[in-house]
């Protein structure tokens, strides 16, 4: 790597008078400012939004986080998992287990869930990474099933029928109801910003460059000295850790857990996959667009019940066949915009 950067430096000094290498674009600078304004507005939401809207926003955040993380796995790392519910559920059960048995404060338990999720992924990775491509996908599903069946055996957490978070623990966050809901809301917002920040920072780092290289050609990138296995394990473990924290927060919002709900493939993987596919796989903006579309559809079509899922599945298939880069891919290709630029561009001065 060092020799290439020296080469760039020499060229850089020779050309510095005429060219500059830039990452941000006018669009991205405007987008960044608007994002800051938006985040400021969302931080203030407990003062302007009603209780129901606050809950809805919290739910939207968790899906933004989960889908961005899944997109990092599938769209950038080539690790298609249909077993992310393993970590969401593990997070939920970690929250319940730690708070009920050890008396850890709930929000601390959410943070600890990240450590446990990362450790779990580190243990699973050597086994799962023996499976290639689509078989890896089903392997992750089996792992999630093992988690589900195992937690269903834990009688102290309600076994197969599940349990509720005791009132004393809920009140320990804050005695005042609106303050408590505010705290949970801000935690969800903060965690989602962490997830998004992680994805963006990773993609802009050397590892991100390595990921792009691996995606384009595994053989070529390996010959450039990229350690493919470690790069993939790193992304898998980090993604799992954050997903587990998100899972803990989801069940802190729900206050009730059961193996079926915690390890639901529909809720934590199917919806997430549809969001990413519809929004645009392999783009940072895709999961955000997809989540908005998903919630817009859900709020308008929810009373259709199973038909809603039929429509969602059909839309995802059509998008996959006709516009594999999703809604955001279509927009970005047509107008050439990137709200979160990853690429560097050479500009004339």
């Amino acid at each position, binding site marked *: 790597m060092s020799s290439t950067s020296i080469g760039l430096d020499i060229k850089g000094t020779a050309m510095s008078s005429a060219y500059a290498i830039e990452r941000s674009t006018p669009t991205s600078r405007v987008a960044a400012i608007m994002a800051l304004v938006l985040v400021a507005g969302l931080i203030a939401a407990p003062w302007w939004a009603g209780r129901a809207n606050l809950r809805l926003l919290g739910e939207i955040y968790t899906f933004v986080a989960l889908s961005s993380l899944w997109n990092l796995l599938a769209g950038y790392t080539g690790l298609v998992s249909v077993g992310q519910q393993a970590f969401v559920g593990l997070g939920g059960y970690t929250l319940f287990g730690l708070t009920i048995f050890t008396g850890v404060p709930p929000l601390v338990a959410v943070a600890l869930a990240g450590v446990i999720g990362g450790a779990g992924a580190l243990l699973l990775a050597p086994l799962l990474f023996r499976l290639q491509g689509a078989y890896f996908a089903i392997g992750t599903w089996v792992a999630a099933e093992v988690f589900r069946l195992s937690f269903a*055996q834990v009688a102290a957490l309600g076994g197969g029928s599940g349990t509720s978070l005791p009132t004393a623990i809920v009140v320990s966050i804050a005695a005042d109801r609106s303050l408590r809901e505010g705290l949970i809301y801000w935690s969800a917002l903060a965690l989602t910003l962490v997830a998004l920040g992680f994805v963006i920072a990773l993609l802009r780092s050397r590892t991100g460059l390595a990921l792009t290289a691996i995606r384009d050609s595994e053989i070529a990138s390996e010959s450039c000295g990229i350690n493919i296995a470690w790069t993939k394990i790193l992304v898998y473990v980090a993604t799992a850790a954050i997903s587990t924290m998100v899972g803990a927060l989801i069940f802190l919002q729900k206050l009730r857990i059961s193996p079926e709900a915690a390890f639901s493939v529909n809720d934590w993987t199917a919806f997430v996959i549809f969001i990413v596919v519809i929004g645009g796989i392999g783009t940072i903006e895709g999961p955000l667009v997809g989540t908005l579309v998903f919630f817009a559809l859900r709020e308008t079509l929810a009373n259709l019940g199973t038909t809603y899922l039929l429509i969602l599945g059909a839309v995802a298939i059509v998008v996959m066949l006709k516009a594999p880069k999703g809604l955001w891919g279509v927009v970005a290709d047509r107008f050439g915009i990137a709200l979160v630029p990853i690429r560097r561009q050479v500009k004339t001065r």
Partner: protein
Amino acid sequence: MDWVNAIAQGILLGGLYALFAAGLSLIFGVMRLVNIAHGDLIVAAAYLALTIVQITGLHPFAAAIIVVPLMALFGYILQRLLLNPTLGKDFLSPLLVTFGLSVILQNGLLAGFTADSRRLSAGAIETASFDIMPGLTLGALPLLMFVVAVAVIAGLEVIFSRTSLGRAFRATSDDAEIAQLMALDHHHVYGLAMALSAGIVAIAGIFLAIRTNFDPASGPARLIFGFEAVIIGGLGNLWGTLAGGVVLGVSQTLGAQISPGWQLLAGHLVFFLVLGLRPRGLFPRMD
């Protein structure tokens, strides 16, 4: 004696898992496609059999004469319309399209048949059994399932090694472009492979419907059992898949012998054990 009995039942159960797995293995072999909707197709075939039995009053086994061709036709159309356009680029698009198909099938069945669990009655054969020795009794139905599984796998082996269709499968699997130069339309060949897979799915679906209760959400577990049988047995080896199904079946019945909650868990853990110790499966194909 309980343990011997559990092992014997597990071996026979393995036949059903091999039936789940054979279609999965076949299409992966021909076109490197992993069909996430495979289990849901099995359940859809079970509902189709149920509907046909209700309408015509046929015996479930006789209904196979209608269910198998219908499923095969559906498989062919599915491949030509939905799956062929996704093949060739990477594994992501076929994976996601079959995932979408899985959700559509589950919710379509839910809308059409409600969430009530159903069962197909096959009459006297369900209770018929053979006493092998004191304490060991084998049911006629599990025995029949096992025999059919062996016959299906033997049939697939014959098709692959002896027929021109099998040659077309192997040629397309080795190199679809060169096969096309030899005047093989690989889209058609893939369609035929999926039709054959869906035909086996139909047989598996009828046996599933007779053996256990099923509901629209039963599909994913069948996919996972089939997948585990394929991986335990070794990719690309059909007899290995049968052995993988048997290993999985025996693990489950032995697990159930320990505690009912351990039935499925034991199967999954044995799968991970094999993956850890023999990543290419117990009987990998000689390459």
